[in-house]
């Protein structure tokens, strides 16, 4: 068992260890213990190769997309779970049927649609695509979770004169906190790690996101493994932190993924 776990841990450990040494030191003895530890690779990447800026760009795009997904999906999920909706079946069918469309199929039409709207090369287009691709699962998930909210509570709120938004904010949101947190973590991981749309929709080097930036650094510095390793760790750090502190939520999402 420990052996199996080691096959996962060792490569990651190797990346971290490599990223903390100079290229000369690495080439001398890649598996040995480094003679000296250094943060040079990180500083160089962050300041000179645009990784710092790309990190911030990715953070901005991911947070915006996730916030929008959460707002739209919880509204729709609440309505579909608890309220009468015109054509509810039609909406649900639409959301479910687009859930399994593989990303590469849509790159050409989405690119053309966004080009027509003047949104290529702009974060608004990219964020819209992330929201659109994230929503179907998010709605499915929140509908499922909000069904568990007792009807009596909603009825009581209605009798007390609470309107739609009041009920949404004071009952659905607090009772659905753990579902919403799960959703936030899963969607954040999805957008943070996404590659194909961030690659084709953003060309301006100042606006590039982290994953395409890392991919091009990996291609440019083939012979400088410590430098690329530092880039790998910077990119992997955020998901790893989330796994460390929110593994409870991630595991819960996993179970719903199976039920699908």
């Amino acid at each position, binding site marked *: *068992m420990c052996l*199996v*776990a080691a096959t*996962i841990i060792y*490569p*990651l450990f190797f990346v971290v260890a490599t990223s903390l040494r100079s290229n000369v030191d690495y*080439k001398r003895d890649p*598996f040995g213990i480094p003679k000296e530890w250094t943060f040079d690779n990180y500083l160089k990447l962050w300041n000179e190769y645009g990784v710092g800026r790309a990190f911030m760009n990715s953070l901005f795009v991911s947070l915006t997309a996730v916030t929008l997904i959460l707002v*739209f*999906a919880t*509204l*729709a999920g609440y*309505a*579909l779970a608890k*309220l*009468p*909706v*015109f*054509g*509810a079946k039609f*909406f649900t069918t639409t*959301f479910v049927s687009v859930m*399994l*469309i*593989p*990303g*590469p*199929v*849509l*790159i*050409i*039409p989405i*690119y*053309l649609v966004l080009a027509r709207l003047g949104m290529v090369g702009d974060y608004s287009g990219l964020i*819209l*695509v992330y929201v*659109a*691709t994230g*929503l*179907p699962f998010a709605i499915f998930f929140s509908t499922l979770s909000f069904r568990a909210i007792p009807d009596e509570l909603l009825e009581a709120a209605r009798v007390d004169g609470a309107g739609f938004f009041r009920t949404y904010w004071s009952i659905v949101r607090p009772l659905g906190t753990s579902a919403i947190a799960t959703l936030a973590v899963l969607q954040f991981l999805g957008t943070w*790690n996404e*590659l*194909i749309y961030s*690659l*084709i929709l953003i060309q301006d080097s100042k606006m590039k996101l982290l*994953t395409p930036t*890392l*991919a091009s650094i*990996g291609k440019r510095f*083939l*012979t400088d*493994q410590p430098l*690329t390793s530092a*880039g*790998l760790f910077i*990119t*992997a750090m955020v*998901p*790893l932190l989330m796994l460390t502190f929110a593994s409870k939520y991630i595991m819960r999402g996993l179970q719903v993924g*199976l039920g699908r």
Partner: protein
Amino acid sequence: MMRQSKLIGTLAVLPSFIIVAGFMAFPIVFVLFISLTKTNGLTFEWLWFKNYLELFADPIVHEVFLNNFKFVISVPLVIFAALVSAILLFEQFKGWKFFRVIFFLPSVLSVVVIGLIFRNAFGYYGSVNQFLGLFGNEPKQFFINSNYSIFIIILALVWSGFGYQSLLLLAGLTSINPAVFEAAAIDGAGWWRRLWSITLPNIRRVLGFVFIINFIYTFSSLFGFIFVITAGGPLYETTTIDYLVYLRAFSSSNLGSGAALAVVLYFFIGLLTLWQSQVFKLQRED
């Protein structure tokens, strides 16, 4: 009152619906249209099925489709590794929850990160060559040989996928009624016998599910790995369909051809999904 709340409910779903319809449902219809035209994105010339006919006659498309089938080798490998880990986890020794998180680790990483780890490791100056060098071997250029390249990508797929899937299989294992195991143990069935006659038959539903999602995955989601590890080369020898859609979309003057390829991929995956639901129906009936 009822009518009013129905209106509010509908309004709450509407923003999501508009976004999904505009950027997922409409594009699917649009890509069908594009695939029947010759276009540079601005003007569309109606061609009927010419793009498709050219596609079916294109030797590169044949080669690429065959490449996808080579990656299918990863499916039994991932499942085998996942099954072994799931059975180990199932013994529920101390600290198994910690291992569960470790197993999930590669699933939270970007394909760019996973791809680069493997590309670095097998690069000319990579750790694999350095390691082989300890035994006096000359460093190898792994990526000029397509067999090595495919092997490395498959290794990356197995490494990044088996942990998550072992958790799926574990969920299947824990849903088996423990009384069945006890009864078998009383009857004197050994560990292997129990594995073959009880454990595996009882999780065949989850096994089927994992098999098919992996199969679909090798046709729809290799883009990131290919882009980072080999860029499809040497020549087209490691290019997959989804990567070819990307290449055709942004390097040729006829987007229609790339769109046709995307549509073929979409229908192929649709068929696989249909097959999946059929398999599940059969299993529910027995």
